[in-house]
């Protein structure tokens, strides 16, 4: 396979303060050009922080640590702050979770879209307006020319999310990072937005990391899936393989907890995973899932578990794999 578009090795996020806490621990990710990688996991497992860490946008008090971080062959760890700022919005762009708050309420849609262009393409400032108009039409915003002059509060949530997508695509990035782009939307709008996102990603040929907790979204859009648990990636696999043969007990538990109409008997409870996620402050020696795992063995708690290659692009952080 060709060189990966994004290569991440040993990405950790550390929250300073006594005691230092690591909500994301040694995450390895690879995204190829034109590929959609879904990062799934429950709330608080570190998926959003991973996305922010990739962009270098961690909140104050958090520190990023990684051994490798390369975008299209360019080392981002050694890059200057100016170079990183140039890359953001141009080569890699982010779509945020809540379209109601991620647009500036006092600037028009057109101003906000054109601003991205002016920031990264100062040589051709005039072309920004056409590009904004074109993209608004492509993401399916009706009456695009009139929308350019409107303020965010005049648009519905679904339209705003489309504007956010258009904004991320302004400079034709090679990597899109979407942090739960459909969570704040109605189910019907979710489907439309996902469709727009998938279509455009294909057209623009960008790689995409989609952070979500919705396995339905994963099934629709993912080429590969990374399952996160308590700040670690516990399983990475091509989407079809992950749904067909989940190897990690946590993934199996997640898939088993999905309600499928017709599969349950009446009044049967959905299956759940017993116990709860260890707090990031807990010192867990071995596998983080061991305390809740139905198939726990002595080896699980003896030493930290490393990801193992299970063949065919399937990596599992489990001693039994």
């Amino acid at each position, binding site marked *: 396979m060709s060189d990966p578009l994004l290569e991440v090795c040993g990405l950790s996020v550390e929250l300073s303060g006594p005691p230092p806490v690591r909500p994301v621990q040694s995450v390895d990710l690879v995204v190829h050009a034109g590929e959609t990688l879904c990062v799934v996991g429950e709330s608080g497992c570190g998926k959003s922080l991973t996305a922010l860490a990739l962009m270098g946008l961690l909140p104050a008090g958090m520190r990023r640590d990684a051994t490798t971080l390369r975008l299209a062959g360019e080392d981002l760890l050694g890059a200057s702050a100016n170079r990183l700022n140039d890359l953001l919005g141009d080569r890699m762009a982010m779509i945020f979770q809540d379209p109601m708050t991620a647009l*500036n309420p006092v600037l028009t849609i057109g101003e906000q879209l054109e601003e991205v262009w002016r920031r990264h393409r100062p040589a051709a400032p005039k072309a920004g307006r056409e590009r904004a108009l074109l993209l608004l039409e492509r993401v399916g915003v009706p*009456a695009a020319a*009139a929308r350019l002059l409107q303020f965010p509060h005049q648009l519905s949530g679904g339209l705003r999310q489309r504007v956010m997508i258009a904004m991320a695509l302004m400079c034709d990035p090679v990597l899109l990072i979407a942090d739960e782009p459909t969570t704040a939307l109605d189910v019907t709008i979710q489907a439309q937005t996902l469709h727009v996102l998938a279509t455009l990603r294909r057209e623009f040929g960008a790689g995409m990391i989609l952070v979500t907790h919705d396995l339905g979204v994963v099934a629709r859009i993912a080429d590969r899936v990374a399952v996160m648990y308590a700040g670690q990636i516990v399983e990475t696999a091509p989407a079809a393989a992950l749904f067909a043969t989940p190897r990690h007990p946590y993934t199996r538990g997640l898939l088993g907890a999905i309600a499928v109409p017709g599969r349950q008997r009446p009044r049967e409870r959905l299956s759940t995973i017993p116990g709860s996620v260890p707090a990031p402050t807990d010192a867990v020696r071995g596998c983080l899932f061991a305390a809740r795992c139905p198939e726990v063995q002595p080896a699980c708690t003896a030493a930290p578990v490393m990801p193992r290659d299970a063949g065919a692009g399937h990596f599992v952080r489990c001693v039994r794999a």
Partner: protein
Amino acid sequence: MSVSIVQSGPARRKHRILKHGGLIFGAFVLGLVVAVSLAAPLLAPYDTAAQDLFHRRSPPIWHDWLFGGHRATWAHPLGTDKVGRDYLSRLMYGGRISLLIGLSAACVSGVIGTTLGLVAGYFRGWWDMAVNFAVTTRLSLPVVLVALVVVSVYGNSLPILVAVIGLLAWDRFAVVSRSLALQASQRDYVVAARALGCSVPHILLREILPNLAAPLIVIATLEMANAILFEAALSFLGLGVPPPLPAWGLMLAEAKEDIFFNSWMIFQPGLLLFLLVLSINMLGDGLRDLNASARR
């Protein structure tokens, strides 16, 4: 494909503006003062320093109407001062000085205070502590005394007055813009702007500052009113606008020995000062109400 877009926002806003009596009154009076001041060279019948020594302390026309007598002359409809200078002309030009000082002082303090507040609210940490220290230091200075000292050392000219008032009145701008910038910098759209590679000055000036505009404009009006009053107070103490400039505060000071026998001399500039400050405050209050209802 034709989609009609409802443009109800501006129409509703217009309605709210027209319903707000204080706002209308303030805007009208202030507009009148501004118009007359700007047109003073065209409207004023005399030079502000021209003396009509045959008509000294000539009372205004309305004084004769109210209290009888035939001392007033149509040559000086609002009377003359003790050296025979035309009150109407001086009052017209006086509005210029009040507005000029109010506006420039509010600009100076607005720029200083907003800059400090933005930096403190966005960067937090040490910057915040430094700005808070500056604000508390500023608040503990006795404004009038400092102004008196500065003016008596550096002399009284318009630029010095503006600088003194501006440098002593930025605290409210700083406090308000700090707290608003603190809130705004946590918003998603600021993170989104960073995610698009925007520089810090760009985020401060283009993303955050416009969100602060409405409350800052309200403060600017109130600070402008304060500056005008402060200038009048300094002028009254003889440390403000240098004579023979026709400032309203100075006219009050020059008329103080006439307060018992020619009270109209002190009454007219006083009334104008009162109306101007009242109208600016009412305009500010109105803008604040409008802003609050726009947010609901």
